[in-house]
């Protein structure tokens, strides 16, 4: 039911975005001038990127003269959990991006085994901002300079008591990251490397800081994508994470993805995702599916 509800939200947002894009096309501000797929896709934390990894891209198909944006709905089905995620982002003049995403990490039947209760759900709101500092993903084909952006993600988890009970230090946290994304057009390759300073446990779904470690750790996230057609990119991602909590070891994440842009208003991403061990349950892998609508 929740899946249905948020799918409807995504679909309605898509519809309204589409109508808005059409209505304002004459004004020129919603120009949708960026080339297909060059805005990345919405990550699970709402910022534009590769799915798990944030990139230096700015959300939306706007150029430097316009405004763009997206709504997204993402579902990750894991061995013992599921993550559902929906949000929206806006890109201003291909320079600044603001995003909001709500993540719902459902423990399902596993919740009972953890003593939390069946379908116990950690909810997290992620407020993101990103600014492109230098470089252009598409045009800078004659230089090694990547597109570089810096971003923040302020995250608020609603399960403060449980987070403290398992050794977490806070239900709120802020991640800081710098991303370098390079499109090697002649090779049909896109490469991203991102450095993130974070205290987040499982990206904040299990809070921030812990009994083992309560300071910021530098973490890496990277993506490699190959453009098969102008509509389709396939690739993989890797993301390292801290392991701050004594009760359960945390692993790095990786995925193999295919992102298909039907047009500039609709794209679909499917990935095989391996999120390692989560809250003592081993080998959490499964399928990520994401629908993104925007202009």
């Amino acid at each position: 039911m929740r899946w249905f509800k948020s799918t409807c939200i995504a679909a309605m947002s898509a519809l309204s975005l589409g109508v808005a894009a059409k209505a304002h096309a004459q004004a020129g501000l919603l120009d949708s001038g960026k080339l297909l797929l060059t805005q990345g896709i919405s990550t699970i934390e709402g910022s534009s990127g590769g799915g798990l990894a944030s990139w230096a891209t700015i959300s939306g198909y706007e150029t430097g003269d316009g405004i763009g944006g997206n709504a997204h709905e993402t579902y990750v089905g894991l061995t013992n959990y599921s993550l559902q995620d929906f949000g929206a982002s806006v890109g201003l003049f291909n320079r600044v991006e603001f995003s909001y995403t709500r993540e719902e990490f459902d423990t399902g039947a596993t919740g009972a085994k953890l003593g939390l209760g069946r379908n116990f759900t950690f909810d997290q709101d992620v407020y993101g901002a990103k600014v492109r500092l230098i470089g252009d993903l598409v045009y800078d084909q004659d230089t090694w300079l990547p597109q570089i952006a810096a971003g923040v993600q302020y995250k608020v988890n609603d399960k403060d008591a449980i987070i403290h009970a398992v050794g977490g230090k806070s239900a709120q946290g802020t991640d800081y990251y710098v991303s370098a994304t390079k499109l090697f057009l002649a090779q049909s390759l896109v490469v991203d490397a991102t450095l993130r300073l974070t205290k987040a446990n499982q990206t904040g779904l299990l809070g921030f800081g812990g009994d083992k470690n309560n300071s910021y750790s530098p973490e890496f996230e990277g993506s490699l994508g190959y453009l098969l057609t102008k509509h389709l990119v396939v690739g993989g991602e890797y993301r390292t994470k801290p392991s701050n909590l004594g009760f359960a070891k945390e692993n790095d994440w990786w995925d193999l993805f295919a992102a298909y842009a039907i047009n500039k208003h609709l794209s679909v991403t499917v990935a095989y995702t391996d999120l390692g061990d989560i809250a003592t349950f081993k080998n959490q892998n499964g399928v990520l599916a994401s629908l993104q609508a925007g202009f």
Partner: protein
Amino acid sequence: MQKLFRAHRIAAACAGLALAASSAYAQDAAPVDAPAKASPSEAANAGATPIAGDGVYKAFHEQAGIQRVMDDFIVRVTTDPRIMARFQGANLPRLKILLVQQVCYLTGGPCVYGGRDMKDAHAGMNLEAKDFNALAEDLQLSMDKEQVPFRAQNQLLAKLAPMERPIVTK
């Protein structure tokens, strides 16, 4: 006389275009700064150095393929509501000749580009990034129609993309 000389030079460089080049060129009263031969200034005018080897040129089906791409492309850009106004009053036969020369040259083909550099050629047009990208999208469609493999298309686009800097001024 000079015009005739230029037309012959182009004809020699791009044999397949000889007729079209001389006739269209003769109509063109605007001065064209053509370099004497392929040289660093040639690359400067064409906006980039050519792709090494002739693999991409062959992937475009050589001169005849590039000609077909540009035949289709000129129709597309002059009917694309996003950018068609930008071509009002343009000398389209000449534009097509120069584009064929430029793409032939950039893909590693045996052509000389006889046009002005990208900055001069687009001066005063107040072009925006969305115009540049719309044109790139039309070019992709024309290359698709010619069945140029995607990777070869991207190799050409990689040469064209940095031209955004001199072309887009607004």
